[in-house]
């Protein structure tokens, strides 16, 4: 907060009102509705509903497919974070080193960032289709690829589709992080340590820590929420519900299955997970990582 501020009885509310109004109607109202759904049970015909306590939550926990979705979401965010983070970092380090063509590389590497996940999914669809798919043929020749029956193959499908564009985001932020490191630090470290690789892991990488943690959070949120468009245009959760993310499952149960209680309970579970990630982010990252 500023030390010097305006003192006024009403004008601050004039500035705050538009956003608060939009948030109240289009965010708080639905959230309250979500909580209401989560704690009520509707009868089979949708005529009436009654307070159900934690029954919807118990139902969700006793549903094995919820754990399948949970397991998949964890694996998916971990693998996407690992793959896109390491490739993004590798490319950013190279792009930061080269003397010629830095901007050309940068431009040609960042554009997939702008493509919608759903568009990436539709594209991946063609590469994994039995009829036209180059990747389908390649993997099929290697080990007999069949994503709509084999869980592992389906994982490969959605992981490739999900990682591709996210490499760009990691590249952009790592490159910016590398460029923010002061030249004098690097020059001094060159005198002390001749080995490029050791210098990277002992000097450069620790200095990149804030960027790395920021990207871990970005990648996890991406894998949780933005991959909806990818799942819905590629496997649609197949085989069975093995490649449904938590968000995708909540959508299917609520919108297609019309089970508002279960969908509401699942949404609240997700909110708690996001809350934990955020607390972790503030506590751990803001506290332990030093920018200078």
């Amino acid at each position: 907060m500023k030390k010097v501020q305006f003192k006024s009885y009403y004008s601050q509310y004039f500035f705050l009102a538009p956003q608060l109004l939009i948030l109240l109607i289009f965010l708080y109202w639905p959230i309250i509705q979500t909580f209401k759904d989560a704690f009520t049970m509707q009868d089979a015909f949708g005529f009436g509903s009654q307070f159900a306590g934690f029954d919807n939550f118990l139902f969700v926990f006793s549903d094995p497919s919820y754990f399948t979705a949970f397991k998949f979401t964890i694996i998916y965010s971990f693998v996407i974070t690992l793959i896109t983070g390491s490739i993004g970092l590798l490319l950013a380090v190279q792009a930061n080193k080269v003397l010629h063509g830095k901007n050309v590389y940068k431009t040609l590497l960042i554009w997939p960032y702008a493509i919608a996940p759903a568009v990436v999914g539709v594209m991946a669809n063609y590469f994994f289709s039995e009829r036209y798919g180059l990747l389908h043929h390649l993997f099929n020749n290697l080990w007999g690829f069949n994503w709509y029956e084999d869980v592992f193959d389906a994982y490969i499908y959605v992981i490739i589709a999900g990682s591709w564009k996210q490499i760009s985001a990691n590249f952009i932020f790592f490159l910016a992080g590398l460029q923010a490191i002061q030249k004098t630090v690097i020059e001094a470290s060159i005198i002390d340590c001749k080995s490029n690789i050791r210098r990277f892991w002992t000097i450069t990488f620790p200095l990149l820590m804030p960027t790395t943690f920021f990207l871990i959070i970005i990648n996890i949120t991406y894998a949780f929420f933005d991959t909806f468009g990818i799942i819905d245009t590629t496997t649609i959760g197949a085989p069975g519900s093995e490649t449904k993310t938590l968000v995708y499952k909540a959508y299917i149960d609520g919108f297609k299955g019309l089970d508002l209680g279960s969908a509401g309970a699942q949404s609240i579970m997700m909110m708690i997970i996001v809350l934990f990630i955020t607390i972790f982010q503030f506590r751990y990252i803001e506290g332990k990582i030093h920018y200078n």
Partner: protein
Amino acid sequence: MTRYISSTINHCILLIGLLIMIVPVWIIFASSTHSSLFINTNGLQFFLGDNFIENYSRVLFKKSGFFNEITALKMFFNSFVMATGIAALSVITSLMAAYGLVYFKIKYATIIFWLIFITLLVPLELRIMPSYIVMSKLNLVNTFAGLILPISASAIATFFFRQFYKSIPDELLEAAKLDGTSSWRFFIDFLVPLSKTMIAAVFIFMFVFGYNQYLWPLIMTTSEQYWTVVMGLKTMYGSISDRFAFVIMSMIPPVVIIVFLQKLFIQGIFQNK
């Protein structure tokens, strides 16, 4: 000598990265310039064909046979209206809200602060079904307002602007106060011009974010008249080369924006760090 070797390795790794990014899109583009018959018999293509103009103009302008009621051109129009609306509304409301939070002594400051920022924990995907019910109660299904408003209900931009305002030296307001500037004038004459880069960056970010929305338009539009490009991709009919052409066209607006305005975008985001 070792220098040449290591720089060659650098370039090689970068080239592999470029290929991973470019080749998939190139193959779809090259395939979109062939006739469907050719694709169906020969598979995906790496070299360009002769049907570029024919395929692309057919997808853009023809209604009947491919879409029941809507052309791709209309979908682009809808996407632009939606994305511009989302970007403009988020920038204006967030710029104002951040100003209210940073530059005023507010009675219930902490409550209002949390009321705004806790919303970052609840992305639209988590409240999709109740949001739909709220929108249908408000009669906003199949309207642009229905497409725009719930996505503008986000505090991300407010967060960015707040960080930026906090980095502006206090002396600016002190000097302005000595001159007797009103809070409204200070906002319009000082802060808005100072935030130009940030405004542009947030606008670009929100525009691309809005254009790329998939789930929300899918739910909010039962009438084809309001279909947007990204959601139309899955539901559209047509031959295989038409679909390739539509995929390629759908990427062009956000990619062009990010490529040409990348400096502005990256500058704006990193001013905060």
